[in-house]
């Protein structure tokens, strides 16, 4: 099991925080790029442990008899949520909360479309019980 060193991550965050506070007053657009880069980098660090967590989930799902397809849909939705959060929080930091709201709305609608097979399956099961 490998995971990023929490002390290194925290140190990086603190250093970037100081730089951001200094930069945001002078050059807000540079602060925006710096915060974007830090967010992306932290997400890249997160990917390795996240992959391990997904492997555990797949393993548990296989033991419980859950097929690979529903689990894949759930993972897709988790990925969409992470990406949307990255974009919308960045926009909100830059003071563009309207754009952030649109990004979140887009992500929600995409999630509904992606999860359509699951919703259809639930509806079918319910109809079968009621009949």
């Amino acid at each position, binding site marked *: 099991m490998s995971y990023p060193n929490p002390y290194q991550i925290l140190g*990086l965050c603190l250093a*970037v925080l100081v*730089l951001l506070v200094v930069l945001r007053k002078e*050059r807000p657009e540079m602060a925006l790029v*710096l915060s974007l880069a830090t967010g*992306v*980098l932290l997400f*890249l660090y997160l990917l390795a442990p996240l992959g391990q967590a997904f492997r555990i989930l797949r393993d548990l799902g296989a033991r419980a008899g859950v097929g690979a397809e529903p689990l894949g849909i759930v993972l897709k939705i988790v990925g969409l949520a992470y*990406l949307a959060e990255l974009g919308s929080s960045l926009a909100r930091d830059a003071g563009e909360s309207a754009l952030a709201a649109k990004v979140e709305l887009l992500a929600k609608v995409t999630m509904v479309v992606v999860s359509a097979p699951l919703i259809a399956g639930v509806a079918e099961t319910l109809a079968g019980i009621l009949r």
Partner: protein
Amino acid sequence: MWGAEIIWQLAGIGILVAVIYSVLKQAGRDELAWVVTLGGVAVALLLVIRLINELFQNVRAMFGL
């Protein structure tokens, strides 16, 4: 730790641009100061876009999006 050097590069570019901007503004060359700011942002975005590309490829592989 890998990848962190891009953070220091970006912070350096930002501070450099801020200093050059204020010097040029003091010298009365406002339009040149604006161009320096724009150039700094463009260079910073070019640095970040590789990182974003890497992130998107990883996310696509992991989540199956």
